[in-house]
């Protein structure tokens, strides 16, 4: 039966002990085959069910044809969104007004705890800094690069290389930068690139970067900016190329040059794209979780809201507090949601 298969559980065993590499390899090879078999089975099962439904429903005619089509096309997506997002969202709000094992209604106690707690204050402040600084820095840098690269030869290569970090995981990016910053541990005698540069520049004893508050938080932000600048650059570069030549020419004939041209012609022409880029960068910045977790584990004053929420909910099992923190994070992006919806309504009205 396909459906039981589709749960993707597998009977592989974890290999303990030290075997010969060849034996280990064979073991992991078998394991891999079982896992891939299950995965392929799940996909095949899913597509088979879909084809069956299509085949059966496609024969329906008359009064029921349209409602049936709506149900089949939209049903699965709606069910997923309902079970996975809408219901949990409401439930998280409800849980945030209950105690930590969700047995008693406690009113705003969890929120009082969050707002009355110094370490949470620090976390909220750090989170706001992330959400303010990273989007502005990445978009600004991306815009500068997009403008400068606009008429260069071989620009595809520069864009590609600066865009590349977007493809790798934030965990990987964090490890790359751990090496630049040299998160020193005592067993290492070698130092990272940043300290080495500092020494070459004549700074005799560079600090231990990871322990330097509040500098360390900004060093973590650099990783996020490094990841996202290329995205801003590529998208804004396309927007600049889309500006009709006549407009720039006309402005030039009127004597606009350099910064004035940029401010009065380029910026208005790419305003929509700028907003989209800022919004997208802001949303990706919410994934700061990965960077903070990998680089500092939230220690040394670098903790952000997403990590605090995770640790409250899944390490300390304080469900009430964790939910309250999740709601606060939601509040931080709520203005963005509202703005987006207003924009979309405008767009649809003009269509």
């Amino acid at each position, binding site marked *: 039966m396909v459906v039981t298969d589709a*749960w*993707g559980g597998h009977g592989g065993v*974890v290999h303990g002990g030290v*075997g010969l590499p060849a034996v*280990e390899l064979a073991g*992991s090879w078998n*394991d*891999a085959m079982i*896992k891939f078999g*299950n995965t392929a089975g*799940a*996909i095949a099962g*899913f*597509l088979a069910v*879909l084809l069956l439904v*299509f085949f059966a429903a*496609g024969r329906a005619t008359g009064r029921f044809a*349209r409602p049936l*089509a709506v149900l089949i*096309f939209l049903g699965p*997506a709606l069910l997923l*969104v309902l*079970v*996975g*997002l*809408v*219901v*949990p*969202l409401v439930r*998280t709000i409800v849980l945030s007004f209950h105690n930590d094992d969700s047995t008693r209604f406690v009113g705003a106690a969890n929120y009082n705890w969050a707002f009355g707690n110094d370490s949470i204050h620090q976390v909220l402040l750090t989170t706001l800094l992330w959400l303010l600084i990273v989007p502005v820095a990445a978009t600004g840098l991306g815009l500068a*690069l997009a*403008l*400068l690269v606009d008429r260069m030869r071989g620009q595809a290569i*520069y864009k590609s290389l600066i865009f590349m970090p977007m*493809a*790798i*995981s934030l965990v*990987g990016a964090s490890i*790359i930068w*751990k*090496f630049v910053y040299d998160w020193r541990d005592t067993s290492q005698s*070698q130092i990272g*690139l940043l300290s*080495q540069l500092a020494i070459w520049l004549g700074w005799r004893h560079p600090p231990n970067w990871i322990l330097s508050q509040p500098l360390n938080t900004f060093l973590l932000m650099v990783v996020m900016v490094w990841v996202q600048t*290329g995205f801003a650059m*590529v*998208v804004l570069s396309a927007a600049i190329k*889309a500006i009709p030549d006549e407009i720039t020419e006309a402005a*030039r004939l009127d004597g606009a040059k*350099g910064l004035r041209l940029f401010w009065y012609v380029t910026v208005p022409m790419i305003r929509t794209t700028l907003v989209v880029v800022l919004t997208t960068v802001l949303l990706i910045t*919410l*994934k700061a*979780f*990965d960077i903070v977790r990998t680089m500092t584990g939230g220690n040394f004053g670098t903790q952000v809201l*997403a990590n605090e929420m*995770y640790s409250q909910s899944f390490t300390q099992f304080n469900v009430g507090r964790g939910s309250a923190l*999740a709601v606060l*994070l939601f509040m931080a*992006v709520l203005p963005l949601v509202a703005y987006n919806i207003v924009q*979309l309504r405008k767009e649809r009205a003009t269509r």
Partner: protein
Amino acid sequence: MRRSFSSPLASLFVVVMTALWTIPTLGLLATSLRPKQDVADTGWWTVFTNPHLGLSNYHAVLFEGGFGVSGGMMPYLVNSLAISIPATVFPLVLASMAAYALAWVRFRGSDTLFFVIFALQVVPLQMALIPLLQLFSHGFHLGAVTVIPPLGTGNSYAPVWLAHTMFAMPLATFLLHNFVSQLPQDLMEAAVVDGASHFRIFRSIVLPLCAPALASFAIFQFLWVWNDLLLALTFAGGTPDVAPMTVRLAQLSGSFGGHWELLTAGAFLTMIVPLIVFFALQRYFVRGLLAGSVKG
């Protein structure tokens, strides 16, 4: 020939920035190729004067593990693939169906539905994690009736697939809707006049014509899932049975054992697949990004 900002100075700035953006990654690659002792003693920039390079770290991290782990990274690599492929296929298929229905099937409330889905795009995952984890581990019961059976977490891929599919739905539906709704109206109407059912239209017109959009989204979603840490951490646990490479790497990164040469090799291993995908399919990826944001 008009030149807006181009000058030797501007070009120099771009070249310097590109170098700055590339050096950290090259440093990681160089470190991962150096023997343990070298890594502990000197910085990676000495490879130019003292080139001792080899793949031994990769062998160690893949098959021997280091860090007191047997079996190495190999099972995690398999898990990453086994998680990412279905978690790309499921939302792609379901969201393209939903996008078609919202764009071309007339029914009451379709506008409202579209707005709800659109608004849900920006909800932080954290808002849904706790209830979803509870649902997956306990199931959902109405009295004595089990409506949704418990899936368990940490011993199968199902919860991770499901979570990724659920969270991808709003964005995928929205992006694909942008494409599907721009298909020529007369083509669609002609198909209806010819008596084609919605299923027929979807299969023979929509899917083939939207292939580029589907490809863009597939690349985006694959990279997203492959690189994800939060959902994997929450729904896959940390065992070699289910956990993907990102989870393993985050674990290793936290354990300072002076095994930096292995950590770098592990980190680079997790990047190989996304980098290949990125450089091979960059054009589609960028096209997908631009379709959502630049009005041409």
